[in-house]
């Protein structure tokens, strides 16, 4: 038992930390806020969400505690926050869009994105890309299309049920008419490995991850599903330029509060997000970590959700068929 006591000392020291952050206050927020994150610690949803939480607590003057609730490709957490009995603004959820919509529409989940109170988004301007290994035989996307007339192309994509890669594959299959085999992997990292090892012909993934490997000259991005060319890689064409209109697949990270959250509380929270987005330190962090910031306020964010509903409903039968 002696050794147990020895262990407790550093733990006690550690325990002082959060009480330093916490400052008692009367009005909202007067106690810590819980930010539920739909994906695993350290991932492309988690890191921007945690960074935001750190800056939010600077402006809210209470600690914002992050809690990763995994399961069902993010559906579990979305349903948990949606079903809050007392929507008092102390529990919010951070996740990626538009994949949450896919989760809702394709898998008949028990939450409605439309009813969620939109607080704002900070990561954006990130789009799905198509890439190959640097020394691949394919030098541009046209060659891939030509080749697919002769044989089936193996396309790798990451992220399980209800992910944006599923959406991208449906687009490639139905609108680009690419003759393909979809090879699903557990993560974007595994897709990149399979592309580099020439096990699949082309890979798909978010720009934020692909651009690093593109810059370090391991992969070559062939096309982006973006409305216009990306300024860091001006030489890469968009799908629209390649002749496939309407194939824009954005990716972003934002936060929501459960339905019926009091308006003034939601405003305090969304103001904290908006202010954090302007914090020079936060912007510096984003630059250093090549996180693409594209802040949207609550109204704009809600509009984007409605647009995404429309574009996903168009391909919904196809997505359900894939399921």
């Amino acid at each position, binding site marked *: 038992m002696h050794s147990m006591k020895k262990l407790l000392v550093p733990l006690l020291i550690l325990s002082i930390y959060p009480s330093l952050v916490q400052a008692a206050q009367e009005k909202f927020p007067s106690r810590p806020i819980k930010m539920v994150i739909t994906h695993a610690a350290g991932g492309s949803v988690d890191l921007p969400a945690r960074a935001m939480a750190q800056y939010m607590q600077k402006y809210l003057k209470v600690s914002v505690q992050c809690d990763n609730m995994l399961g069902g490709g993010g559906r579990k957490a979305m349903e948990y926050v949606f079903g809050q009995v007392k929507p008092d603004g102390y529990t919010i959820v951070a996740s990626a869009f538009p994949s949450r919509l896919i989760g809702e529409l394709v898998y008949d989940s028990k939450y409605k994105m439309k009813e969620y109170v939109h607080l704002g988004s900070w990561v954006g301007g990130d789009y799905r890309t198509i890439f190959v290994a640097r020394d691949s035989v394919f030098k541009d996307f046209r060659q891939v299309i030509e080749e697919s007339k002769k044989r089936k192309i193996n396309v790798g994509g990451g992220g399980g049920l209800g992910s944006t890669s599923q959406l991208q594959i449906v687009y490639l299959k139905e609108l680009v008419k690419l003759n393909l085999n979809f090879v699903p992997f557990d993560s974007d990292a595994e897709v990149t490995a*399979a592309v580099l090892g020439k096990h699949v012909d082309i890979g798909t993934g978010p720009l934020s991850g692909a651009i690093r490997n593109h810059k370090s000259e391991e992969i070559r991005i062939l096309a982006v599903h973006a409305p216009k060319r990306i300024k860091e890689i001006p030489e890469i064409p968009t799908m629209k330029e390649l002749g496939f209109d309407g194939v824009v697949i954005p990716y972003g990270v934002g936060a929501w509060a459960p339905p019926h959250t009091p308006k003034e509380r939601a405003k305090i929270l969304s103001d904290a997000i908006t202010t954090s987005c302007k914090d020079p330190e936060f912007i510096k962090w984003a630059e250093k970590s090549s996180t693409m910031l594209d802040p949207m306020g609550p109204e704009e964010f809600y509009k984007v959700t409605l647009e995404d509903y429309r574009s996903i409903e168009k391909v919904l039968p196809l997505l359900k068929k894939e399921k």
Partner: protein
Amino acid sequence: MVPFDIIFQGIAATFTVQNLFLLLLGLIVGVVVGILPGIGPAAGMVLVLPFSVGLQATSALVLMSGVYLASSYGGSVSAILVNTPGESASAATLLDGYPMTQRGRGAEALGISATAGCLGAVFGVLALAFTAPLLASLALRFGPAENCLLALFALSVISAIVKRNPIKGLISACIGLVLATVGADEVSNSIRFTFGLEALEDGVPFVQTMIGLFAISQVLTLSEQNQTISSVELAGSGFLTGFKTTFKHPLTLLRSFIIGLWIGALPAAGRSTASFMAYAEEIRAAKDKSQFGKGNPVGVIAAEMGNNACAMGDLIPTLSLGIPGSVGAAVFLGIMIIFGVIPGHKVFIEQGKTIYALFTAFFIESLLILALGLTYAKYFAKITLVRNDLIVPIILVFSLLGSYAIQNSFFDLLITAVFGALGYFMNKHGYSPVPLVLALVLGPMLEKNFQRALIMSDGSYSIFASSGISLVLVALTFFSLIYPYLSPLLKRWRIRSR
């Protein structure tokens, strides 16, 4: 090759007062989150993230490295002493570590764990520093077909394990394989065998299952026998015994190191796979297989070496390609990116100072863990003599917490309780749980890659014979399946021919 002055700059950068303090802090946090079940290295690193605000990249990574490495040592402490894996990666350690403890050799097992872990990390860092690009490009040659065959090869060791009791062993393996198919099949997007329970959609959770199979069944056994954990007086001090024992098995160390490093270099498999594969390989290689699971030090050496070599191996693709080799490494990658260290094959030159400072930190930490492990082993081991009505609730509470804290879910406690009953029953009636656990770890790797390979080849099985690596793996698997039954025949034939 990286210029030497960069390497020396990196080494020198580690030895500042601030960095050494951060290193120690990371180490302590790592050991603590390691010992506590349910909180893994990933959560631990995120926990210390607030401390790194405003630090230079080098200092921040030194802090993280402590948590990353030390958590595996902490995880093994709880695995060895109370049969509760503190991390999923430490699950293989308890198979022989806990039986050693029951026989009064807990301190020795802890010494082995610290020594083999230290060797794994030290040689792992060296491999990482000097062969990372080469190993990373080799690992890329393992596609779905090769990964599938690798899992199959590892599973084939079951035929050697179950030789003593083939039918019950096979039944145990089948239970594991069936459990591995529960949940959403991500390749075909269909939900299987969840019996309407949403909580099972992500599969049977591994750590919660392990805690049930081993810790809860142990709680039951301990309380019905009304004994302390160690049924005999502690043997010797164990201070240096474990250290010496480890070096008596150089071949085990070598094999487990290679397996650990290699599994680490593969992006598709993580630390628990590595430690179980290393463990299985030692059973395959051993002449007397009957001692495994009864406190064979070789089992502990293999599991620990595999685990720690893999922790370093995971960083090979992480650093040189930007592809994380495991969940823990993914968090590490995320944190590196936050601090502006962008991985890729140029990272060793462009960020050489930071990277070599990180390697030096790993090096120092391994030695500190060894020192800590050897010094404290005998005090830690005292817990095995704590009287029954105190130790049983302590194990019970911590193992339930380990199961609960992962998803904050009471459903997981039910899973743990059910597997507690299963584990108790299996122990009582001669079913070895080892094939079950191996199958549970390797089943998903086998099936997912099997499906992927067949999608890629449009359903043609020829993909499993399309590369040299595949053919070698197929041959190895066949050999390992029939060898246990062939060897007695060969022996008889040899005697007759004489």
